[in-house]
């Protein structure tokens, strides 16, 4: 039989980017422990809608942990208390009857709030435009295996490429730094032969953009790695540092 719980939510409500927001209390009654966190919010929103109140604005898309749309800070932790889990994959069985859950949006100067729990993450797109790409001529596809890639490098690049761009690393960083995101993107491409030609330019450009966008600086707190739903390692930040040192002092790029 399905177990149900009653919980109290304290949710950040903010009408618009310029509005002053505050934590408001809402009750989530008879919540099945089989529900995901977002389904629980859906239930709360249905009740709010029926009562003629404004539903809580939050972002979601695939709800299977791969799109990177969802994410809130739950009780002070980005994507909630479970490791390697995005908010949509967090289930209510991890909470107890009578719990009070505080839900806040990602907070960073670079992520202005649009409404309630939704933040504008266009800064991550700006970072990608600054260098998160490779330039290749279009045309017929090259023969398979013309560029040998060691298995280990392919695996490491893939681990970095697992980043879904949700922004939890920035939300969880005490300094709101984007180093894990940029580290993952730079590593993903620096590890593969196709990414090498632009590696120096990419490292300089993405780090420069990161500063322009008013992200904080990395203090190696490791909070990013702890909350990342794809468990991306801070060794990618070390690789970014190496790439940046090589680019800044060793390459002709400016």
């Amino acid at each position, binding site marked *: 039989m399905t177990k149900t719980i009653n919980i109290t939510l304290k949710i950040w409500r903010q009408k618009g980017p310029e509005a002053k927001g505050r934590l408001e209390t809402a009750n989530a009654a008879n919540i099945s422990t089989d529900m995901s966190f977002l389904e629980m919010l859906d239930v709360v929103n249905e009740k709010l809608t029926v009562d003629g109140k404004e539903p809580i604005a939050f972002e979601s898309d695939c709800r299977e942990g791969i799109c990177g749309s969802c994410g809130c800070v739950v009780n*002070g*932790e980005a994507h909630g208390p479970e490791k390697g889990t995005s908010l949509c994959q967090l289930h209510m069985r991890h909470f107890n009857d009578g719990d009070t859950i505080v839900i806040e949006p990602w907070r960073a100067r670079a992520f202005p709030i649009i409404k309630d729990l939704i933040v504008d993450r266009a800064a991550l797109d700006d970072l990608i435009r600054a260098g998160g790409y490779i330039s290749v001529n279009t045309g017929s596809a090259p023969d398979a295996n013309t560029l040998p890639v060691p298995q280990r490098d392919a695996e490491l690049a893939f681990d970095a490429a697992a980043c879904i761009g949700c922004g939890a690393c920035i939300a969880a960083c005490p300094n*709101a730094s984007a180093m894990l995101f940029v580290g993952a993107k730079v590593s993903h491409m620096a590890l593969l032969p196709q990414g090498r030609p632009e590696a120096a330019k990419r490292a300089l450009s993405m780090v420069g953009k*990161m500063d322009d966008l008013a992200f904080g600086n*990395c203090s*190696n707190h490791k*909070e*990013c790695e702890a909350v990342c739903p794809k468990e991306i390692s801070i060794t990618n930040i070390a*690789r970014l540092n*190496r790439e940046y040192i090589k680019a800044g002092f060793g390459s002709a790029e400016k």
Partner: protein
Amino acid sequence: MNWLTQTLGSAIGKKLLMAITGLSFIGFLAAHLAGNLTIYGGKDAFNSYAEHLHALGPLLTVAELGLLTFALIHVLTGALLFYQNWRARPTRYAVDRSSGGRSIGSRTMPYTGVIILAFVIFHLINFSFVDKRHITIFELVASAFQNPLYVVAYVAAMVVVALHVSHGFWSLFQTLGANHPKYMPAITIIGLGLSLVFAIGFGFIPVYILFIA
């Protein structure tokens, strides 16, 4: 802006400045500790260590100026990083909980840093900027640590140094890009070991002088 200031002024460049100056201070602490340990050899050993050190003359002055420059870089860059990081999150979280990344050392870095700066100034006033024409360094140290308040202040300062090093050591290697699956576990352990060595090595000297010597 030229390429050098641009590189060093970036998010990673500033951290590199912190890492390199920080590593130098760890080297300085190790050398300072090695010298201080001569105090267990008695009054003459300690005074002779001080004399030999000062016999270096201009070399010592160059080293002191180097340390001063590094200290200025470390403190000013640290202050800038602290300000920028604080500014990067204008609204704080109502609930701020660690997901397991932060350590006591990492979360207190700016504060332990300020305490260490205050301590270094206090320490230099105590033992460096004093007229030593009529008093040996051993007598100076021995008389200072007859005051239990000094002993408490010095021991507490060394605990703060240990906290700072506990995060700073592994963190500087990470910043320099030296995070390697074969070496990082050792680097982390060496960092914690060094913190203990500094805390006990420096911290026990005032206690030894007050109660034993």
